[in-house]
């Protein structure tokens, strides 16, 4: 009896020290992970003459918003362009994905599995493999210049993942619900509108967030498909940072500004962001 108690005591004691060790390790790693964030904020708030090598890791002596003001000046048009691209393409591919997911989960046609697999492959392709023809086609159709090419690209290449997310989501709603509507004689669209859409909010949240984030963070399509007037924020940020004359305080402030929208979405709606991540992993 007493030996048993000692064993249990030993075990909980070991568990406690184990937890302590894990906490310390996690804390140390968290500090390492936060180093870039520290640099971004601290450097961003330095006045120009303090953003030097000698004071690289020290907090600002005088806090200044000079870097932020300059960064805002440089990025404002890009931020606007990014909003104008990311919002419509997120909405469009979510709507298409919802329709596709519904059909592939609940209103299947012969060959639906094959079509679905072909869609999924579209999610993995390196976009370089479509970029030159896409560019040539848009030039040929005289569509280059504005934001349209970018909206088109993000919408179309967002369809696969949105379809995947909605298909998995709809497969989890009870078939009886859909069947009941069918037996009542409701057609496909009626069933979709009255039974399926009303319960789709979580899947819409996941796809909208996912698509908004990837469109916002995209750089590849942007450099191939947009010009100076329609550059989104990633391209402008890269221009700011790539030029040797822009001081560090301004570069760092610009990097934070350009990341703020997606970071805020992540912090506020992290739960949905996570689900999008998981779906992205689990394709096939």
């Amino acid at each position, binding site marked *: 009896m007493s030996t048993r108690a000692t064993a249990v005591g030993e075990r909980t004691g070991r568990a406690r020290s184990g937890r302590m060790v894990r906490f310390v390790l*996690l804390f140390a790693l968290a500090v390492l992970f936060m180093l870039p964030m520290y640099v971004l904020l601290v450097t961003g708030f330095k006045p120009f003459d303090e953003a030097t090598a000698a004071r690289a890791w020290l907090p600002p002596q005088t806090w200044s918003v000079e870097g932020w003001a300059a960064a805002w000046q440089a990025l404002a048009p890009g931020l606007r362009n990014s909003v104008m691209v990311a919002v419509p393409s997120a909405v469009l591919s979510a709507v298409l994905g919802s329709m596709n997911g519904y059909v592939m989960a609940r209103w299947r046609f012969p060959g639906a599995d094959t079509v679905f697999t072909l869609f999924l492959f579209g999610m993995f392709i390196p976009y370089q493999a479509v970029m030159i023809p896409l560019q040539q086609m848009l030039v040929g159709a005289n569509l280059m210049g504005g934001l349209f090419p970018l909206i088109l690209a993000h919408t179309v290449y967002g*369809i696969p993942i949105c379809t995947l997310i909605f298909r998995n989501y*709809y497969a989890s709603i009870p078939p009886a619900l859909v069947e009941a509507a069918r037996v009542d004689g409701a057609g496909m669209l009626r069933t979709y509108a009255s039974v399926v859409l009303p319960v789709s909010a979580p899947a819409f949240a996941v796809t909208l967030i996912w698509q908004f984030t990837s469109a916002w963070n995209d750089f590849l399509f942007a450099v191939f498909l947009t010009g100076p007037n329609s550059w989104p924020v990633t391209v402008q940020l890269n221009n700011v940072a790539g030029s040797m004359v822009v001081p560090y305080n301004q570069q760092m402030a610009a990097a934070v500004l350009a990341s703020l929208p997606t970071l805020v979405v992540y912090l506020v709606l992290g739960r949905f962001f996570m689900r999008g991540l998981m779906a992205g992993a689990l394709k*096939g």
Partner: protein
Amino acid sequence: MSVSEKRAGGAVGSGPGRVPAQMSPWRRALVRSRSWLPGLLLVSPSILLIGVFVYGMIGWNTRLALSDRHRPVQEGEFVGLTNFVSLWQEARWPAAVGNAVVFTVVFVGGALLLGWFLGLLLDKGIRGEAVFRTLFLAPMAVSFIATGVVWRWLMNPAPAERATGLNALFVHLNLDFLVNDWWTAPDLGMAAMALPAIWQLAGYVMALFLAGFRGVPEELREAARVDGCSEWGVYRHVVMPQLRPVLLSSVIILGHMSLKVFDLIIAIAGQQIVADVPAVYMWAMVFEVRDPAKGATIASYLLIAVALFVVPYLVWSVRKERSEGR
């Protein structure tokens, strides 16, 4: 953790498509099609878009890669695999491929190891778990360009006396032996280049593994403990073997990102040749050299590299889903 969590409802042949026996075959087909034709129609806009913009464009790109259209204005003639072969005869291409390979190995290995370790530390619950998770995953929400801006500063290769970034920190902490050239080092520069990518994606791997760990039923772990397994033994013999699918998905996701890495390289190194990779080379072909055929050839190689391990993975997943009868 598979394409569909549940088997999609088998709509074909049920519902309104039920067919009386004595109909003519044509009429029967027509009636039956009513059960699936609307579905096909609803998906058809997407089928068209994917067909044109994914498969059509890939076909067009392939044709371009097989032609001698080396200037935008000229029409190309079919030249077979000439471009695919000649790429290997120059100096730049094999170097770019080598860089991408080093980057991929370090990045995928590093992110897996760190992500797995973070998942392991968090698995059994700890005070502030939600905060840690949020923190490790946060870099995922940021663009590679923004990551590149701050890491270029961190990995500034300037010598110790005017060092910034990590080199300055090392000098400051009297760890001078750690001061190094980072991504500008000719041999292992690409290993340093993988650090920001690891920073950005380790949290993702952590989330995948954490979900995997937690999916292993507690009874299984308890049973192993009763059999005298140590806590570590439980992980080694019970939990880890269940996580092979998670490992596989992680490798696929990270690997396909890595082979086509572009933004991060541009943001940190621009087009400096020491950090050249196929995607940057292709970009230069399109915008500077203006050689569509060569650009398309590089793009084709990227596609082949990615397809080589994504296609078997997709086929494997779809088969698994079927065999599980879901």
